[in-house]
C-alpha cells in the first residue's frame, strides 16, 4: 500500500491511498465536525459540515472531508475564516429545523451560530440521511427512504416494510441528530399499523 504525505493544518500527515481527508485528520487527532458521516456507511458528503480547504497540486477548492480522498502532497486547512463561516451558516440553517438538538447546539457554540437567525422550518429533520442509509446499507431492509426533492425532500417510512421490520430493530433511532426520526416512526405506526402500535403501548 503506497504511503501518501499530506499536510493538515500545518501538520505533516502520513496516510494510505484511498483514505479520506477525514480519516487522515482523525488519525493525527485533528477533529473535523460531521453530521451525515458514519463509520459503517458509505461516505455521503451531504451535510457539508465537514468542508475543508484543499490545495491539491495547485487545484484549490473546498471539499467535503468525508468523501474526498487524500492525494500526494495535498495541503488541507480545516479551520479558516471561510470554512468557519460556512459551518456557522449551515448550523444556523439546521437549527432552523431542530433548535433543540444537542449535537447541533454543541457545534453552534463552537462556531458562534445563532439558532434564531433563520426563519423556523416546519420539519425537525436535517436530512442527514443516517437513518435511510443505515437501514439500506447495514440492515438491508429499506424500511425508510427519501421522498421528493429540493426544498420538499423528506424521509418517510414505508408502512408495509416498517410494520414487519421496525418493531424489533429501531437501531436507527440513536443515529438521529434530532427527534424527527422517532416522531416519523410513531406517526407511521399510529396511522399505518395501529394494531401493533396499541399492542406496544399497552405492554409498556
Amino acid at each position: 500500500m503506497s504511503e501518501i504525505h499530506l499536510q493538515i493544518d500545518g501538520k505533516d500527515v502520513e496516510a494510505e491511498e484511498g483514505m479520506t481527508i477525514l480519516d487522515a485528520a482523525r488519525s493525527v487527532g485533528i477533529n473535523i465536525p460531521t453530521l451525515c458521516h458514519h463509520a459503517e456507511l458509505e461516505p455521503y458528503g451531504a451535510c457539508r459540515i465537514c468542508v475543508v480547504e484543499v490545495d491539491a497540486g495547485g487545484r484549490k477548492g473546498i471539499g467535503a472531508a468525508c468523501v474526498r480522498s487524500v492525494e500526494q502532497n495535498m495541503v488541507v486547512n480545516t479551520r479558516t475564516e471561510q470554512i468557519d463561516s460556512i459551518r456557522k451558516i449551515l448550523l444556523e440553517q439546521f437549527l432552523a429545523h431542530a433548535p433543540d438538538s444537542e449535537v447541533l447546539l454543541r457545534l453552534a457554540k463552537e462556531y458562534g451560530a445563532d439558532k434564531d437567525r433563520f426563519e423556523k422550518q416546519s420539519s425537525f429533520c436535517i436530512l442527514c440521511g443516517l437513518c435511510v442509509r443505515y437501514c439500506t446499507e447495514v440492515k438491508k431492509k429499506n424500511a425508510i427512504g427519501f421522498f421528493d426533492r429540493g426544498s420538499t425532500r423528506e424521509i418517510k417510512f414505508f408502512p408495509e416494510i416498517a410494520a414487519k421490520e421496525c418493531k424489533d430493530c429501531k437501531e436507527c433511532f440513536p443515529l438521529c441528530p434530532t427527534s424527527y426520526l422517532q416522531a416519523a416512526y410513531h406517526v407511521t405506526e399510529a396511522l399505518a399499523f395501529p394494531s401493533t402500535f396499541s399492542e406496544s403501548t399497552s405492554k409498556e
Partner: protein
Amino acid sequence: MPRINSPAELEEFRKDIISKRDPNKPCIAVCTGTGCLALGAGKVVAALKEEIEKQGLNTEVVDTRETGCPGFCERGPIVVIYPEEICYLQVQPDDAAEIISQTIVSKKVIERLLYVDPSNDETIARESEIPFYKNQMRHLIGNNIKIDPKSIEDYLAVGGYSALVKALIEETPEQVVQLVKDSNLRGRGGAGFPAGIKWGFAAAGKEKKKYVVVNADEGDPGAFMDRALLEGNPFGVLEGLTIGGYAIGASEGYLYVRQEYPLAVENVTLAIKQAEEYGLIGKNILGSGFDFKVTVHRGAGAFVCGEETALLASLEGKPGEPKARPPFPAVKGLFGKPTNINNVETWSNIPLILKNGPEYISSIGTENSKGTKIFSLVGKVTNTGLVEVPMGISLRDIIFKIGGGVPGGKKFKAVQTGGPSGGCIPEEHLDIKVDFDELAKVGAIMGSGGMIVMDEDTCMIDVSKYFLNFLSGESCGKCSPCREGITHMLSIITRISEGKGREGDIEFLEEIAISTKNASLCALGGSAPNPVLSTIRYFRDEYEAHIRDKRCSAFVCKDLIAYHIDPEKCKACMICSRKCPADAIDGAKKQIHVIVQEKCTKCGTCYEVCPSGFGAVTRLSGEPVPAPIPEEERTIVGKSK
C-alpha cells in the same frame, strides 16, 4: 438496403444517392421541429401534399421534405423552397395552393409570405439573406433544413459519415483524441471543460469496458438548442458519439434524453435503427473491426440529471443525485467504468473536426473559446429562436442585429444567460465578447446557451424569485447548502417582493448565496445563487426600492402596486368596469369610475383597456393611493355642445 461493409461501399452508395437526386428539381422543405409543429406545420405539410396531387403534379416534379428546426421559431411554420432557397414565413395550410401554383409551377415568389426588413420595408426572398440568418454562422444547425431527420440517405447526401470513415480508416484512437484537443473545443453543456482533455482522461483508462454518453437532459427554462439538434439532425450526434466511442475505446454508448422531448426520442431511435441497418452502428463498422452499440434512455423529468454524476446515477437506475467528484466519470463513471460524457452540441461538433480538420473550430472565436455556439434567444426580443454564432460576437450583435432588438418600443433592461444558474447582464456590458470567460467575469455563465432578453417591464426581484423557485423544486435536496440555501433565499426574496423586506436583507442574501456557492456538492448548488448575486450586483437599487420604499418600478410585484383612476381624466366610458374580471370598479354611465382597492387583484386589465385618449388609469407603486372621490361628486355634468 444491404449493409455497407467498407468505406468504398459507403462512397459508392453516397454517389448513387446523389446521382439520383436532381439539384434543380424543386423541393419544398417544411420545418417540422417541435416549435413549428405546435404552430401547425403538420397541417401545412398535409395541405402541400394534397395540392401537389390536386394540381396534377407528383414526386417526379416536386419533392416535399419534413425537416428539423432551422431556428427562426418566431415566424413559424417555416417553408424553404429549393433550389432558389425561397423562405416563406408563418405559412398556413391555406397558402398551400398558391405556393404550388405560383412558386412551384410558375416560378413566382409570393411577396406576402416573405420576410419584411423592418429597416426599409423591403421583402427578402432568400433564406440566407434574412438578417436573422445572415449574421449567424450556422455550422451545426445549418443542415437542419436540408435533411429529413428520418432519412439516413439525406444525411449521407450532405456528406454524413465521412467523418467516421476518416476516424476509423485514417486515424488511430489516440490521433482522434489529439484532433479534438487541437480543436480547442470546450464542452457545450455548461462548465466549458476542454473536450479533448476530457476524452484523454477516459481514453487513458485501462479497463476493457468503457462508455460514452450523450447528455440530452436539456432542462434550462427557455433553452432548446439540444432539442433542435437531436430532432433535426440525430445522425450528426450519433456520428460524433461513434467517433468518440472509437477514440476512447468504448463499445457502448448511451443517449440520456429528457422525458419531455418525445420527438427527439422518436427521431434518434429511428436514426439508430437506420444506422444499424446500414452497418454504421453495430459489429465491425465499415470493416474496421470496431464494434459499437447505442441505447436511448429517457430521463424522468429531473433538472438535476443534467449534472453528469446525477445523470449516470439515473442511468444506472438509482436516484438522480450527484456524487462528489473526484473520482470523475472519466475514471469511475457508468457502472463504475471509465465514461466520457458530453452534451449534444459538443458531440455534434465532432464530425466537423474530423471532416474539416481541428482548425475549422480553432480558427473561430476568442483566445480560450473556439468554434460556434448555439443560443436560444427568447424573452422580450423581436426574433425569438435559435441562433448559432461564432464565439466572441458581442451580446449586442446577438440581441439587436440578429434578434432585432426589443419589441414594442420598450427599453432593454438586461439579458439573462446560462439558464437558472446564470446571471443577468445589464446594458453597460452588452459589448462584451460572448465566450466562457467573459460571461463569467460579469457574473453570468455561458451555461448551455439559454439567453433571455428582458425589457423595462421586468422586475429583477421577480426574476430572481422565478429562478429560485425553479431551483427549489429542482435541487435534488441531497446536500444542505443547496437545499437550505435556496429555500431561505427564496423565502427572503418572496418577502421582499411582498413589501415585507427589512434592512439587512440584501447583505443576508449575499451571505447565504456565498455559502451555497462555495459549499454545495455539485454545480447546481454552486451556481444556484448566481441569479441572486448578479441581480444584486447590477440592480441593487431595485432591491433597495423594494425594501425601503416598497416600490416596484417595473410594476410587477403585486403587493407593491395599485391601480387608480384619475377622476379628472375619467370619461365614465364603462370599458374598464365591464372588463374588470374582479368586479372591482364602481362605475355607471356619467359616473366617474372608482377602483375598490379591497377587491382589486392588480391584473392590470383596466390599465390596458382605458382608451389611450383618456389615459385615466394610472399605476402607483411606493406611494399612497389617493382617497376615492366622494360619491356625491362622481356625476359628470355633460358639457353642452
